[in-house]
């Protein structure tokens, strides 16, 4: 194990050119690097990273009391103010009532063309010519009919903070920064469920935390939890805020003071162990920072959930997250080696970091998926891998969804799935197609036309049935090419035609911009959401058909005036089944309570999923949104087990978000 240098860093290091751009785009940072074996470059990288990491900002807010974990700062790699993506005041760079960065959004310009603003993403600054027609055609929406959001938060919308004076007094003495500013509180009162964002856009705010605290390290958390327990204050851990399970909503019946514990400032990589290929991090670090910092020294975790721009390591652990490239790297439960969690009963962690243990039920599994009901995850040791030498996107077009699923099943059977393999249905294929940016060259559009002609006319694929699988290969260049051939050969047996890298890459782009697109839809009376499940292979086709049909059926039943978008993709493959992801959106003009209609439809869709053998959730978690189905999901005895753990660990329900149970 290599300890990172303890020497103070001079100012000259600081002026070294920064290699990490603030919030670099996900879609663009996956460029291939074949120089990972180049030791010198790696060493240089490392130097620069460390140099950058060790500079903490001296910024101090008048409201926020700054404090450092002095014990640990000198011997750790921390994201400094430049590299730190998430400031305490999130609203400075992020939307308070929508997804993502304030500077990045879709809009229809004066010519009625869609464009994506900002500079962060591949799509930024580009015109997307096909989006308007797709949008209007799919939803029956009209650019004349706008439903704009309330631009600014009215500070009267929130109740004044209900502070526990004794708690606040003692907290002050610890020096941990906190705030009861309205904007700070409102920002941490929600995740990204449709109803939460819809309410914010209308300027409506429900129960919000009374106060936000920003611990800087594990010890800060220990102090906060002790004080909360002592003074009977309700704590709600907050990581990246990307929850889609109503897991961050303050329980309306909660009468105690609610404190949001924002882990975003606990964002250091504490050490990297190249011998064992592990890294030890504070749990507040967000996905893109973790990955970028590791990349700079030639490593990666390979954990890339769709929310990785904003979601945090602690959040992944607390929800049993899953990453796009789990076929190579595994899901979060496969990646963690050691977890430290602070509970009202004290700190829970294993006594060693052995790679596997037979020591009774794995206590990590009480923590993984505990959704903030037992404590705060503060530090995690995670596996790391050398960065892949080569990356290649790909895509395959199938004549229909059935053939596509059969192909994915075969790929899973042969255990040769690439880093990522996803199968989009016809509607989603069209959706992805509508996001094609304007092509600059006549030649490209000519080639596109030829491709289309070849597939639909020459090969006889019905444009209304064909579907596309997107692929991402990673590894040694040679192995990737070999692997690619193997997968394409299997695809050919199921009538699949290779359809190029471009289609593949665009498919993944859809994932990262979908949440921004939802905000665009909401500007024009269109609301939507995604949800997921996992299901055995033999039920994949049935569940996809039935859930999509159920959505359409329920929309009609509930008086939705326009046919909804109801689409799915098989987004992960396993030995014994697959993960299915559904998108669902509709035009709500003519409805008096669109969110209620939306919730009824989503509820019905979840019932349909369960009736068809699907799980309650593959990786989004339960939160409070899906609690009602927990008993049938894990049985009464299972509920009792979880309940008794909760009762022991947190008898006073300090972690009172009321998720799961």
């Amino acid at each position, binding site marked *: 194990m290599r300890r990172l240098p303890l020497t103070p860093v001079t100012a000259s290091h600081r002026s070294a050119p920064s290699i990490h751009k603030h919030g670099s785009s996900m879609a663009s940072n996956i460029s291939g690097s074949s120089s990972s074996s180049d030791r010198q470059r790696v060493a240089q990288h490392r130097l620069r990273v460390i140099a950058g990491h060790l500079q903490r900002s001296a910024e101090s807010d008048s409201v926020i009391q700054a404090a450092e974990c002095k014990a640990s700062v000198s011997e750790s790699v921390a994201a400094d103010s430049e590299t730190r993506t998430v400031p305490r005041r999130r609203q400075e760079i992020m939307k308070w009532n929508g997804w993502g960065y304030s500077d990045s959004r879709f809009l229809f310009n004066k010519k009625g063309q869609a464009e994506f603003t900002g500079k962060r993403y591949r799509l930024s600054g580009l015109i997307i010519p096909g989006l308007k027609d797709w949008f209007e055609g799919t939803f029956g929406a009209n650019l004349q009919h706008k439903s704009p959001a309330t631009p600014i938060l009215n500070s009267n919308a929130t109740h004044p903070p209900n502070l526990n004076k004794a708690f606040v007094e003692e907290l002050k003495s610890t020096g941990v920064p906190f705030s009861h500013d309205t904007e700070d509180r409102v920002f941490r009162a929600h995740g990204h469920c449709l109803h939460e964002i819809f309410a914010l856009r209308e300027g409506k705010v429900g129960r919000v935390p009374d106060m936000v605290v920003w611990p800087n390290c594990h010890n800060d958390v220990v102090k906060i939890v002790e004080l909360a327990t002592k003074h009977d204050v309700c704590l709600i851990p907050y990581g990246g805020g990307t929850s889609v399970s109503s897991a961050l909503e303050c329980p309306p019946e909660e009468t105690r003071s609610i404190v949001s514990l924002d882990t975003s400032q606990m964002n250091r990589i504490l050490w990297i162990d190249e011998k064992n290929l592990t890294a030890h991090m504070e749990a507040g670090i967000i996905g893109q920072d973790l990955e970028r910092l590791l990349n700079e020294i030639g490593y990666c975790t390979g954990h890339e959930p769709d929310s990785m721009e904003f979601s945090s390591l602690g959040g992944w652990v607390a929800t049993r997250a899953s990453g796009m490239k789990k076929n190579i790297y595994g899901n979060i439960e496969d990646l963690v080696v050691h977890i430290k969690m602070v509970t009202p009963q004290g700190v829970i962690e294993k006594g060693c970091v052995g790679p596997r243990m037979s020591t009774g039920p794995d206590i990590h599994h009480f923590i993984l998926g505990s959704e903030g009901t037992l404590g705060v995850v503060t530090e995690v040791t995670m596996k790391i891998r050398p960065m892949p030498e080569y990356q290649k996107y790909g895509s395959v077009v199938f004549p229909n969804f059935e053939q596509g699923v059969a192909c994915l099943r075969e790929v899973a059977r042969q255990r040769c799935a690439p880093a990522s393999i996803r199968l989009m249905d016809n509607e989603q294929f069209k959706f992805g197609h509508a996001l094609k940016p304007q092509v600059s060259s006549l030649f490209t559009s000519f080639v596109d036309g030829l491709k289309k002609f070849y597939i639909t006319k020459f090969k006889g694929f019905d444009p209304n049935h064909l579907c596309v699988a997107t692929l991402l290969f990673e590894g040694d260049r040679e192995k990737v090419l070999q692997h690619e051939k193997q997968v394409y050969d299997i695809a050919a047996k199921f009538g699949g035609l290779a359809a190029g890298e471009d289609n593949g890459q665009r498919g993944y782009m859809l994932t990262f911009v979908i949440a921004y697109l939802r905000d665009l839809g909401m500007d024009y009376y269109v609301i939507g959401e995604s949800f997921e499940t996992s299901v055995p292979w033999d039920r994949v086709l049935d*569940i996809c058909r*039935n859930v999509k049909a159920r959505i359409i059926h329920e929309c009609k039943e509930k008086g939705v005036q326009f046919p909804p978008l109801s689409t799915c993709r098989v987004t992960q493959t396993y030995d014994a089944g697959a993960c299915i992801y559904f998108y669902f959106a509709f035009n709500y003009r003519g409805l008096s309570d669109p969110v209620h209609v939306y919730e009824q439809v989503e509820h019905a869709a979840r019932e349909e999923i369960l*009736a068809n*053998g699907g799980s309650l959730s593959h990786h989004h978690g339960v939160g409070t949104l899906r609690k009602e189905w927990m008993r049938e999901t894990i049985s009464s005895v299972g509920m009792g087990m979880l309940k008794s753990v909760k009762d022991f660990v947190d008898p006073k329900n300090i972690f009172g978000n009321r998720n799961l149970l």
Partner: protein
Amino acid sequence: VTESVLYSRPDWNHDEEFVDILEDRRHSSDLGHALRTFNPQPYQGGQPCSAAELTKTVLESQHLCYVIALETGSSIEEVTEEARRTLDEMSQNLQLGFIRLMSFTLTKVFKKLFSSIFVNMDTLSTLQQSIQQTPVILMPNHRSYVDFLVISYIMFSYDLPIPVIAAGIPLAGMKMVGEILRRSGAFFIRRAIGSDKLYWAVLSEYVKTIVRKGHAPLEFYVEGLRSRTLKSITPKLGMMHMVLEPYLKGQVFDITLVPVSISYDRVLEESLLSHELLGVPKPKESTTGLLKASSVLQDSYGAMHVNFGHPLSVRELLKGKINRCQYNFVPRSKDLPQKPSAEVQACVSWLAHVVVGTQEQGSVISPWSLMTCLLLQAPITVLTVEGFPWHQLTEKTLWLKRLVLNYGVRLNWSDVMSSSLTLHRSVVQRKADRVYLVREKNEPRRRPVSEEASVTATAKSVLMLAAYRNQSMHVFVRPALLAVALNITRNELFAFFCFLQSLFSYEFIFIPGMQFEDACLLLKKCGAIRINSDEVIVSDSGQEILSFHQSLIQPFIDSYQVTFSSLSEQEPDVFTDKQFLPAVRNLATRLLLSGEIHTYEALSSDTQKNSLSALQRLEAVRKLRAEYKVDKAAVKHLADRLCKSHQ
């Protein structure tokens, strides 16, 4: 509440458009019709599937392969071969050419037999939409062999996909006809399947594949067989289970059930029916038999009404009734036909009852059927000797017409009553303004007719009349049970109603729930009763209506009592299937001759069997393998309880 909405009696929409489809045929070329362009809009979720492809899919299905692999004793090849043979015997071979041939022939035949074939055009167009959206199951009632292809004929005429039809295996055995039916879309099912696992597997996979693919509607008779009494038969559930399974297991989003009500003014097989009910066995289906029977083609049979019911969504009907998660643990490929859970059985049974109930509601009642309701209430001597005064019959029939219109029934009142009488001259005749029952002319009297033979002859005619009365029995049965109950008790009205309902549960179709409310509602609607808070009060004018209803149900009560007496006399208290019917029939004949009972319907083997089933259900009789054991005390108790209704 939703249940009552789903199958409560909707008032007959008088705007419904019934069109006589023979009208066009009488004015244009039959050949032209047979050769018409046929361009149906099939189920959108499915792809066309030929008969050969269907067979192949079934044979290669994982499910069948699994069952085959489980069959021990012979090699996989042998079992596969047997499965293939079974499929060959079973499968339909629908061909458009034969549909055209069939259409041509049927046009000729129908024009000869029927004055018109009325089809409800409104619901036909609803059907067209349903067919495009979900797999559709056509579920007609079965009153005549003519039913068999009439739906295919209509579907062909109106550009709807030709259904595949479940038929009994005897039809397949008929020379030529079997093959013609097969090519017209019929597939054939053995009658007694018993425990032949392979056969079950092949059949259920065949049926389920048809439902899943949805390329053609599936047609089957949920009653299982042709009703000899023209009354609905308690539905059989085997086929129903197979049909519903793809929905229950999530293999299709929904299934649409379309009950079809086919009503005949006069049934071709009418004389055959009463023969069979009196114990003369049904002739074996054969082509020569069919040709011999062609004499019936010389006669006329009035109008036929085909009413496609409103499509019933299985998903909608089963909402909240079945937890489909129970199927999620069994892999699709290892999905053996297993005994469904009690919950599923109850639901499927309920659904089948809803279908039959809907068939009944959709049927069209003829004036003749109302007339028979009245004729059968007269003492037998009035019908055989004195004659029923014509003016009294017409007057009472008009009274009854008003009553049933109050009940919201579809009436076909285009015929005047006298022409009804003409149409049914084989049963009744009018002489000097009196109506007499026609008794079958005996063979030239070589020897004096025995008393028993005379009873049988009268019974034959009475049962024919009863069959036509049964066409409208479903309209009256609920109020009738209430009328009987009102005669006995006021305090335990509901309990007694339930008792009668469970006693007659094999005789009439009762959809669980709401029956009592329905009965009250109807009697209230026609002014026979008033309901004050929780009390039922018979109105002054109500007695006439109530006694009409009581008299209507009385033959059934009397017939059941005969069974009860017969079983009480039974020594020892064990009997077999073979002994049961003759014993009851002998007792009934004896009682008729001695004048202790008056209803000839007691001789109907159908009623006798139903009463035995009811006794089993009420646990007064237990079945032990081939024998039945009587609990005489229980039978006596039932008889006493029912007896009160005489007083």
